[in-house]
């Protein structure tokens, strides 16, 4: 369990298409889902938490556990490299010039961990390949393994399996769930698919039109459907 405390406003400066996002909530959770239709701000939330958005556009604070990640009133803004928040994006973002092994080892806890996670995820056969030689699903697995190898307080997964076929998706979701539970690493999981959220998350944030429409334990959200 980890304590989240977020309060921020985000306003894009693009005059033609302005987007405003507002969050103000705290909760405890292990795997928290962020659920909503496209355009509701799900990915924007994660990007703000990761520090990918320009700090001039954000106003508010984000506390993770007992650490202040950012607090614009007190001018605190941790750089990305110090936030200790791992990221599994939709498009894996593997380093194209390195092999799978090197990608996994980029900033891993230790090399023995690399070997053990590789075998856990069935990646050992791919270790000396380059990302360009992998399939989409394999790349996402590597991205996930890489994220788990880096010292972090939180893992943010942004629709990591949305581009995969159903069978593989189910397989990887199962793997993800067991791994997260066994490691105890808290996670934020973004998705627009109800079945993914129901199967994985214990707590849920429902987003709509740039605001949190509802949040609470997954079991309490009865009208959960695909969006």
């Amino acid at each position, binding site marked *: 369990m980890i304590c989240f405390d977020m309060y921020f406003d985000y306003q894009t400066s693009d005059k033609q298409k302005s987007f405003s996002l507002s969050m103000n909530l705290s909760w405890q959770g292990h795997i928290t889902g962020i659920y909503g239709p496209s355009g509701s701000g799900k990915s924007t939330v994660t990007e703000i938490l*990761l520090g990918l958005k320009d700090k001039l556009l954000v106003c508010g604070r984000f506390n993770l556990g007992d650490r202040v990640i950012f607090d614009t009133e007190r001018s605190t803004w941790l*750089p990305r490299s110090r936030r200790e928040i791992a*990221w599994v994006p939709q*498009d894996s973002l593997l380093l194209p010039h390195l092999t799978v092994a090197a990608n996994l080892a*980029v900033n891993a806890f230790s090399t023995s961990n690399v070997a053990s996670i590789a075998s856990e995820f069935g990646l050992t056969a791919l270790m000396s390949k380059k990302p*360009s030689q992998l399939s989409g699903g394999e*790349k996402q697995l590597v991205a996930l393994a890489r994220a788990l190898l880096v010292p972090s307080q939180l893992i943010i997964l942004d629709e990591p399996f949305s581009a995969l076929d159903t069978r593989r998706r189910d397989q990887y979701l199962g793997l993800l769930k067991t791994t997260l539970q066994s490691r105890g690493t808290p996670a934020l999981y973004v998705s627009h698919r109800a079945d993914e959220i129901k199967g994985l998350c214990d707590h849920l944030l429902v987003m709509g039109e740039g605001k949190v429409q509802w949040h609470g334990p997954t079991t309490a959200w009865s009208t959960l459907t695909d969006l």
Partner: protein
Amino acid sequence: MSVVMLSVIVSLKVALLATLVVVILATPLAWYLTRRNFTGKFLVEGILLLPLTLPPVAIGLMLLMLMSPRGILGRFWLAVSDKPLLLSWQAAAVAAMVISFPLYLKAAMESFASVPQRLESMAETMGLSPWRCWWKVTLPLAARGLGAGALLAAARALGEFGATTMVAGSIPGETETLAVGIYNSVMNGDEYTAWSLATVSLILAIIATIASRSLSHYSAIRAV
């Protein structure tokens, strides 16, 4: 030693020093201009790219002033080496530096721009400090483009003439580069030397430009 060999050695010295300095100075600058925005950035870029459009002789005249014993470059060199800067091969190198600087800067900026920022952000979220990220992610991905740019700058430095004659004169064995040597041989009616030098110049230029193109051809970053 034959005239041709002497000119080749001078040209290679000049081009090597000029390219080295340009790469070291312009690479971080190119990075900064690609990734940061600030007011008046277009002005700064315009000024830095100026030597691309100025006639080399005009640049030569300005450099002549700067390299004089009272000028900023002349005084610096005097302090460092106890020798006058004008009419030395180092002066030819400075002229070549100024001329090829914008060429490399443009190529470097394009190389850095082709590295997806998201990749860099990803590396940072994994705990790599901006400096380590630059070495492990940005630089390797931009390396081919930077190499191609450096070769192009070297080729330009090899061929530099107008500004060079102004500030370095044409002392055989010291400041007579290939380009200057060709010019002098033609002026002195020495066709044999002129053609020998021209052939060597052509070969060096072909090597440099082909190598440059092959590097940039194979540098496509596949979006993964």
